[in-house]
């Protein structure tokens, strides 16, 4: 017979999704925010992103080839995602050699040390960012001024969060519309609030992520901000503080793209909600009472560490049992 027979246990069909297709969708979802950033900061944004992506892919390839052995995994595009996310967490005017160091830490230390994709306990891009923030604090917090449109600098080059924290401006002075369309100083990928939300909706539609983590993170932050504003006496602050906190700093980038990283987030919907609430709470505590103006990265990394514990104790609702266990 001219046929070659295949035999295997069921199921015999497979969904169209693969690791590569999921990563490709994440990259597509990041493009609107990248485009806005180019509009706000100029072509330098593309240069920083390109250097981050190329270094991440190259480090993964080289480490796989010379240290770990085995087939190359760069085809699954996860290193590209790490590269784009790392770039999104950097100022647009950062020296390029710092970008390369960040990529080395992200891929070399945070990802490949543990065996590569699927085994890293912490979000690689965030480990890279936090390393750079501690090692090169000056370069990491000097932001270029937006160059597009008629931008009026109310923050003196500081991010809105830093400006409010240093009492340079009042929250009520901040132009929320500028924050929505990305006209504010900040890391190159975190400023475009609307574009990030569009990317998130795309990932929801393509079933790349579920709503649980972003909604838990952002909902907790908004509620926390509202409660604090209310206890401080409210006024106009009461209405603006939640919206300000959701659009300032890395809240949207973190909640939609960083906290939802598959490898480092919990496996059950209930666990995802706990994890998201934890990130929201820690972020707000750092923002309001901590030494740093922004706490998203630290909050996500902290909850990454708690993820194995959540996975151990938070079980899905079992069919046919009244309780979860």
């Amino acid at each position, binding site marked *: 017979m001219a046929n070659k027979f*295949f035999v295997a246990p069921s199921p*015999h069909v497979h969904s169209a999704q693969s690791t590569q297709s*999921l990563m490709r969708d994440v990259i597509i979802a990041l493009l609107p925010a990248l485009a806005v950033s180019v509009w706000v900061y100029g072509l330098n944004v593309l240069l920083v992103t390109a250097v981050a992506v190329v270094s991440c892919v190259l480090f993964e390839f080289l480490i796989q080839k010379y240290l770990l052995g085995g087939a190359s995994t760069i085809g699954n595009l996860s290193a590209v995602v790490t590269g784009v996310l790392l770039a999104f967490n950097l100022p647009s005017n950062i020296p390029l050699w710092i970008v390369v160091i960040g990529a080395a830490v992200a891929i070399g230390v945070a990802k490949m040390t543990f065996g590569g994709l699927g085994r890293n306990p912490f979000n690689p891009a965030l480990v890279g960012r936090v390393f750079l923030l501690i090692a090169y604090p000056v370069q990491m917090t000097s932001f270029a001024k937006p160059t597009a449109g008629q931008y009026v600098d109310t923050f003196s080059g500081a991010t809105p969060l830093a400006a409010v924290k240093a009492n340079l401006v009042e929250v009520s002075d901040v132009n929320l519309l500028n924050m929505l369309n990305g006209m504010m100083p900040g890391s190159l990928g975190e400023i475009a609030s609307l574009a990030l939300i569009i990317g998130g909706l795309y990932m929801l539609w393509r079933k790349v992520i579920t709503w649980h983590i972003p909604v838990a993170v952002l909902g907790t932050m908004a509620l926390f901000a509202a409660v604090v504003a209310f206890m401080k006496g409210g006024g106009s602050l009461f209405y603006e503080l939640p919206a300000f906190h959701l659009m300032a700093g890395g809240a949207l980038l973190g909640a939609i793209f960083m906290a939802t990283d598959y490898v480092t987030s919990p496996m059950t919907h209930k666990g995802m909600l706990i994890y998201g609430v934890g990130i929201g709470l820690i972020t707000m505590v750092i923002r309001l009472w901590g030494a740093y103006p922004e706490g998203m990265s630290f909050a996500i990394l902290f909850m990454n560490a708690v993820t194995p514990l959540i996975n151990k104790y938070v079980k899905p609702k079992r069919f046919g049992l009244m309780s979860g266990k």
Partner: protein
Amino acid sequence: MKTFPLGGVHPSDNKKWSCAKPVEVLELPDVVNIPLGQHIGAPATAKVAKGDKVLTGQLIAEATGFMSANIHSPISGTVTAVDMQLNGQGLRQMMITIKREGDEWMPEIDRSAEIKRECNLDSAAIIAKIKDAGIVGMGGATFPTHVKLSIPNGCKAEYLIINGVECEPYLTSDHRTMLERGEELLIGVEILKKALNVEKAIIGIENNKPDAIAHLRKLIAEKQFAVTVEPLKVQYPQGGEKQLIAAVTGREVPPPPGLPIHVGAVVCNASTSVAIYEAVQKNKPLIERVVTITGKSLKEPRNLLTRMGTPVAKLVEMAGGLPEGDVKVVNGGPMMGRAMVNLDSPVTKGCSGVTVLSGKEANRVEAETCIKCAKCVSACPMGLEPYLISKMSKKQMWDGVESERITDCIECGCCQYTCPAGLPLLDYIRLGKQTVMGIIRARAAANAPKK
């Protein structure tokens, strides 16, 4: 629209290849092989020997105990062997081989086209007739129907649910049966209601079969059957017994040893309901069934009324033969069917279709590393964590997988279907489940009071 509460996936249903093809009668095979074990429970005991003459519909093997089923000759002719033969999976199994001579039926079988609605038998007599006719669940599980209908003490049936879901991709035999044998099906439901002494009978049909829903509703209104049709949102594995009960009644069957009857439900497949009508009203045992032969690359996908024991190769031939190149021939649908190595093996009572996958679809996707995407957890209709129990089974952590409820797994394949890393999750889960069930049985035997 109703559906089951947890998990589920949406594989493309691929029903279009055969759903519009009316059922055709397949020509009689010259030789049939009848396996003695084609149902859940003990294999039947052969009642014929080499050289015996048999008629169509004659009992050739008798149920071995309660949890077993009778088997009847699908053709008339001479028994040429009662011996071990290869089944579809290439395993040796006891089968009765019959060489056909004409087609002479047992005289008590009513072969007229007349539809007989009136049934004056009581519950015990109905169940006895169903048992005699060797009826088993024809959706694929092949659970003996008389066992299902014998309600244990202390339980009460409240719902009779007819499974017309047919959630397996490709298969259309139940769909065609509902369209073409609707009235017989509904009389079967009436008989079952009487046997179970229940008031409520609900036919669950997925919404991708609007013609079947409309047709049955029309018949129910015209001929005044006390049955309702419940359209269900399309989602695999809705045809799973526990999922269907939850979708229709909102009640969840407890984990093993929990049974559907513990939540007051009895589920019966749509084609089985027609077979029950034939058994009770026409004295006809289960000797033929509708089999879908289908696949994207087949020249002529069909729905064929096939005598049991007909070689699968005959169906493939009727569909225009296998396509060139890589193929996988699946007994059943692509989600839960079994890949075949031997196409000369026979059609049995649980064979609702034969699906031919070809080209790239014939082989599995390549396995990569788990990226903890949690899609398997979201997809599991039983609320398990497939990535975890699969990994633990691979590491032979039997205590661990038992406490993670591996025995709840219904092997629907949603986890493996959805896994973007292409991991063989269910392979390891099956291994773990079988091992744990063995451990549980051994423990029960050790703890049993000594005589």
